[in-house]
């Protein structure tokens, strides 16, 4: 990560937001996040207690070993306590899909079927909320 400099004004803050949004930040150059598989793992206390850390580690390792260029990051609670660990997978040019109950076996299935072949697997959680923009 680049060293943080103080943001000196509201205008500067807006600039950073816009840079971040359009992916033009220097540190992202060449990585072209739009063309990568992006995975978010819900890592709140409840998710971690249900094994989200193992799922996240497995995902990062397995994707690297299997030669798939992917960005695995953590995020907060998605709200689906009944289906932890929960992950969101965004394939290039597709809408993100949320999977619930992702133990290591399920994680493996998601990589092999969905990430490699675009084939959905059981355990999708339909998004049933609206986020203000």
């Amino acid at each position, binding site marked *: 990560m680049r060293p943080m400099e103080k943001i000196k004004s509201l205008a500067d*803050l*807006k600039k950073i937001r816009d840079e971040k949004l359009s992916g033009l930040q220097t540190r992202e150059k060449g990585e072209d996040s739009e063309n990568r598989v992006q995975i978010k793992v819900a890592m*709140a*206390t409840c998710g971690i207690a249900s094994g989200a850390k193992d799922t996240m580690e497995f995902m990062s390792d397995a994707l690297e070993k299997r030669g798939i260029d992917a960005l695995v990051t953590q*995020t907060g609670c998605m709200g689906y306590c009944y289906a932890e660990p929960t992950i969101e997978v965004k394939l290039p040019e597709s809408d993100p899909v949320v999977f619930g109950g992702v133990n290591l076996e399920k994680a493996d299935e998601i990589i092999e079927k969905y990430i490699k072949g675009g084939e959905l697997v*059981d355990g999708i959680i*339909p998004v049933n*909320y609206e*986020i203000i923009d």
Partner: protein
Amino acid sequence: MSNYSMHLLVCGGTGCKSQESDIIAEKLKKELSKQGLEDTIQVIMTGCFGFCEKGPIVKVMPDNTFYTQVKPEDAEDIVEEHVIKGRRVERLLYTDPETNKHVEDSKGMGFYKKQIRIALRNCGIIDPEVIDEYIARDGYQALGDVISNKSPEETIALMKESGLRGRGGAGFPAGLKWEFASKNEADQKYVVCNADEGDPGAFMDRSILEGDPHSVLEAMAIVGYCIGADMGYIYIRAEYPLAIERLKIAIAQAREYGLLGKGILGTGFNFDIDLKYGAGAFVCGEETALIQSMEGERGEPTLKPPFPAESGYLGKPTNVNNVETLANVPVIIQKGAAWFSSIGTEDSKGTKVFALAGKINNVGLIEVPMGTTLREVIFEIGGGIKDGKKFKAVQTGGPSGGCLTEKHLDIPIDYKTLVANGSMMGSGGMIVLDEDDCMVSIAKYYLDFTVEESCGKCSPCRIGNKRLYELLDRICAGKGEESDLIRLRSLGEVIKDTSLCGLGQSSPNPILSTLDNFYEEYLSHVVDKKCTSGVCTDLLEYFIVEENCIGCTACARACPVGCISGERKEPHLINPETCIKCGACMEKCKFDAVILK
């Protein structure tokens, strides 16, 4: 990259499954393979769509067609008409109750608007440990705007106009609170975030702090600007280690960017934030007890007035807001008071986060506009009651709240209505109870909690709650009398009227509301000495089921008091008069013939 050109998503939530959605999925697969399409179109079982009322649900991707109340025999039409001929099956489309028209694309469906995430806008979306991700989603813009372009008075007026009320329980208007603190002159003022979440089964604030810590930091700085404070503290219980860790990271990052500290964003505004840890006492969620605890004193409430806005932390004017209240602030500033007050009801604006727990299928964290009904929350978003059992009650407001029943399912959730019906909003815990729950035991559970958590400063709460608990304990043990029910109510009223702080003033609520709504159940405990839900073991009797008993005599031989009689190879009988309820018979029986009833 996909081999499949189309997906048929069949809801595998409990509600839809009980209406044969798995058979629908099987039939769809069969129909597809009949047409030789099994390799190009995939059938998938999903989690709950949160629309159980109109289940079973089948959604077709990528065109977003949303079929409701599908039956197994509809599988043929879906495949023949929709998949092959590309024509939607009109009769299965959802009809919008407002426009009376079929909805073709599920993105336009009203039910997706049942949940609107404002306080949870970034939870599960951003990486909470990366400040840039928060900034990319308009983070710190509200703070920048306020300190660069708005006066404190203007900002307070905006908050008052928005109608935001405290989300910690009492529902005091946030803007008004800020105004009080701003008007009190002092050389030093403080902003405090109350993150002492303590209701059993509640985890709204923890999720916000773990998923979006910067939203709380930003809001605290805004409050600081409005009331004229340059220092803020987050009072958080030490048993939330992950939330603490993420807050520490967030504070460090905000300082590095100069979003906390001196001369924020090139203005003359200074503000910094530090953490104060609580030891997990429930009473410290009360703002005066919280301040005592912050000062290193015993966590005991003090008399109001003086209010914290006059004399709070270290005797200085202090504004205390709850985590969820604060998480709403940056959005309100950016989108305006009119936008916020357009959501919700006359009395309660915006949304509320609830932690759904108990006997409900979709245990989880939800955020709904104020005014949503309990029915929508429990039976649609929550997916209904577990194992197809019958709904009995929902406990809202934690140990200070009450139980609402079947007849309350259609009341709108807002501050006023919940109180009018004997419960309260509280901080947002919602515990769903089914037919197997004994309401007397539930009331006893909450009293046990308040007795444990009472700080002991005032006698109504310290002694009164203990007596209430003993009465309930007696009733559950089958030693209660009908007059105990009168005693419960009168003592409860006295505790409410005479306690010093909110804890004691509300602790009898679980008893009073269950007495109101489940009086029969109390009566059967004290008069018939029966617990109809089968929870209070002292009121249960061991009983041999005739059909299951083969007459092996194992139970009779195990019984220490010889109360089991019966011939060999004939069903046996337990004499309840002499039975001491030791359970030895039940342990010995290999045929599930001995039950508790």
